């Protein structure tokens, strides 16, 4: 039932065991992996940074929303911070439910909302040595927001 920011490698098997529930017939999990390219550019590694107190509050709200919207039993999400290598696990979401429909829907809701709302930032380091904070280019679309931007 928890949302956590972690500076250590994630252990999906342990995270999933914590959701074990005799009433559950379905467990859906999502793993976000560091992939070797983004928008066609070769990526060498990723750095994640979080504003942890607000991230954990906002994450907990998202899990509570998922439990309210869908007939689920357990929900959990853990997001890594730090410097991650290709193939590493950046975020894990797990949901248990009696039936699979609710587990799929809630798992997707949680990761979609987490990506849109939780104050976590990602810096891509490219093969050539350059790097960039994702979504922070000063041209392009404005980010969606709920509380309203400053200006």
């Amino acid at each position, binding site marked *: 039932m928890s949302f956590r920011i972690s500076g250590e490698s994630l252990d999906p098997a342990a995270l999933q065991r914590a959701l074990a529930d005799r009433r559950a017939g379905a467990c859906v999990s999502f793993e*976000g992996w560091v992939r070797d390219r983004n928008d066609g550019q070769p990526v060498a590694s990723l750095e994640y940074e979080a*504003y942890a*107190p607000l991230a954990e*509050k906002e994450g907990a709200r998202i899990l509570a929303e998922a439990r309210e919207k869908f007939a689920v039993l357990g929900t959990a999400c853990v997001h890594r911070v730090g410097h991650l290598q290709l193939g590493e696990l950046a*975020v894990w979401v797990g949901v248990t439910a009696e039936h699979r429909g609710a587990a799929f829907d809630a798992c997707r809701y949680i990761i979609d909302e*987490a990506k849109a709302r939780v104050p*976590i930032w990602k810096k891509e380091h490219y093969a050539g040595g350059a790097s960039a904070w994702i979504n922070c280019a000063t041209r392009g679309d404005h980010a969606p927001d709920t509380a309203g931007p*400053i200006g």
Partner: protein
Amino acid sequence: MITVHVQYFAILREQRGLTQEKLATDAATTAALYAELRARHQFTLPADRIRAAVNDELVAAAAPLADGDRIVFIPPVAGG
């Protein structure tokens, strides 16, 4: 004039060159404070790409500031 604590993350942390600072300001709102800091430190993100949190809660654009507030300006997020 009030004294506030500002904490910086991600692109703002890099552009400020600090993770946090205590500062005295005449800014009455989060929006005014961001404008002041942006001008001083050449932050690239315009105000309409930034949200703010005061004392670890998201606030509206022009939230009033009080002495001792802890403020975080939030660049576009990119978890996952």
